[in-house]
C-alpha cells in the first residue's frame, strides 16, 4: 500500500466520521483525475463537469458503502464509471457519445505515446480504439491503476485487463506509425 493510498484511506475514514475538511481534501486530490476519466468516458468535457459533481454527490450519499479494505482511488473511479453509465442509460446518449468522438477536447494523451506523434494525432488514434481497450489502456498508463485494480473496476480478470491494455497500446502504435508514414 503506497503512502498516498494510506493517506486517502485515512481521509476517507475521517470523512465517514463526519469531517467536511477530509471531504475537501479528498476532492482536491482526486477530482482532477476523476474529471479527466469522465471526460474520456463521455467524450465531452461539458458533460464531465456535471458528472464530476454527481460522482462526488454519490460518494457522499454512499460513503457508508466504502470499506477501508479497498483503495480509495479505484473505488471512486469505479463510482464515477457507474455514474457515467447510469447517466448514459438515463439519457440514452450512447449514440451521441460515440458520434461525438471525432473531436475530443480533453482526451488524455499518454505520456508513453507522446514521442510517437503530436497530441492531436494521439487523441485521434485513441478515439479510434475500441472503447473497452482504450479505457483499460488509459486507466493503467494515464491514471496509474494496477491491472488488479482495473479488473475490480471493470468486472474482468487481471489478465483480461492486461490483454486489453496491451492490445490497445499495440493498435495505438500501429495507428501512429501509419500516420507518420503517411506524413513522410
Amino acid at each position, binding site marked *: 500500500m503506497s503512502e498516498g493510498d494510506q493517506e486517502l484511506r485515512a481521509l476517507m475514514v475521517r470523512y465517514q466520521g463526519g469531517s467536511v475538511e477530509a*471531504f475537501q481534501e479528498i476532492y482536491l486530490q482526486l477530482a482532477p483525475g476523476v474529471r479527466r476519466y469522465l471526460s474520456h468516458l463521455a467524450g465531452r468535457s461539458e458533460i464531465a463537469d456535471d458528472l464530476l459533481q454527481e460522482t462526488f454527490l454519490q460518494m457522499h450519499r*454512499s460513503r457508508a458503502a466504502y470499506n477501508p479494505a479497498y483503495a480509495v482511488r479505484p473505488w471512486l473511479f469505479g463510482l464515477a464509471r457507474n455514474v457515467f453509465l447510469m447517466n448514459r442509460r438515463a439519457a440514452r446518449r450512447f449514440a451521441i457519445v460515440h458520434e461525438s468522438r471525432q473531436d475530443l477536447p480533453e482526451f488524455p494523451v499518454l505520456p508513453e505515446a507522446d514521442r510517437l506523434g503530436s497530441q492531436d494525432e494521439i487523441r485521434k488514434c485513441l478515439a479510434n480504439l475500441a472503447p473497452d481497450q482504450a479505457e483499460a489502456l488509459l486507466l493503467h498508463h494515464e491514471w496509474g491503476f494496477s491491472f488488479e485494480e482495473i479488473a475490480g473496476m471493470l468486472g474482468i480478470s487481471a489478465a*483480461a485487463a492486461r490483454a486489453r491494455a496491451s492490445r490497445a497500446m499495440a493498435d495505438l502504435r500501429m495507428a501512429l506509425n501509419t500516420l507518420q508514414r503517411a506524413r513522410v
Partner: protein
Amino acid sequence: MRDQPQKPPESLMRAIARDLRPVRPSPQPFHLALRMVPLALLVSSLILLAIGSRADSGKLGPLLTWGASSAQFALAIALVWIAAHESTPAGRLPRQIVYSVAAAASLVVVLVTLITFSTSSGNPILPVPPRINEILRVSPWIMGLACGIGSTVAGGILVLFFSCVFRNAIATRPSVAGALYGAGAGLAINAGWRIACPFSTPWHALGAHGAAIVATVILGARIGRALGNRRLQIGGTHS
C-alpha cells in the same frame, strides 16, 4: 496535460454540509454474506418445524438429506458473497466467476433433484386425512402450488432482508447484483424446504421449487434495479 487541483463547487459543498452525520463503514463482502446465515437458518428451521422432516429421509440417508442441503446452502452464501462484490465499484469479480457460480448453483439443484428422485421416487403418504391424500394424488399441482408459493414467500423475506443490507450498494449492474442475492435467497430457502417437502418428482422439485428460486431471482433483480435507479438518479436528492 495535468489539471490543477480545484476547490469543490459551492453547490456541492452545500449538499455535503446538509448531511454530515457519521456513518459506519460497510463490512467486507464475506462478512456481508455471512449476515444472511442466521436469518436463512431461522426461516429454514421454522419451515422444518412447521412441516416436519420428510418421511423418506431414512431411505435417502444423511448425505442426500442434510449433505445436499448443506451444499446448496454453501452455494447460496457464495452467491451472496459474489453479489456483495458486484455491489462494490472497485471489488467486482470477473464475469466468468459470476456466471460459473450461477451455472454451478443451477446444476447442483438439478443434480440433487435427479439423485433424490432416483433414490426415493415413491408416492408419499402425508399425515392428513385419506380423502386429502387422494385429492393430492389426483391433483399433484395443488402441492406444487403450495410449495411454490410457500418457498417464494420465504425467499421473498430473505430478499427483502438483503435489500436492506445492500441499500447502500453502488453496483455497476444493480439488476445483476440483485439477481445474485435473489438467487442466494432462493437457494438458501430451497436447501431447507427440500428436507421438509415429501415430493421428489422432478416435475414437482424443478417446477415448483425451481420456479420459486426463479421468482426470488426476478424479485431480487427488480429490487436491485429499483434501488440502483433511485441511488444513481442523476441530479436526484435521495439519501
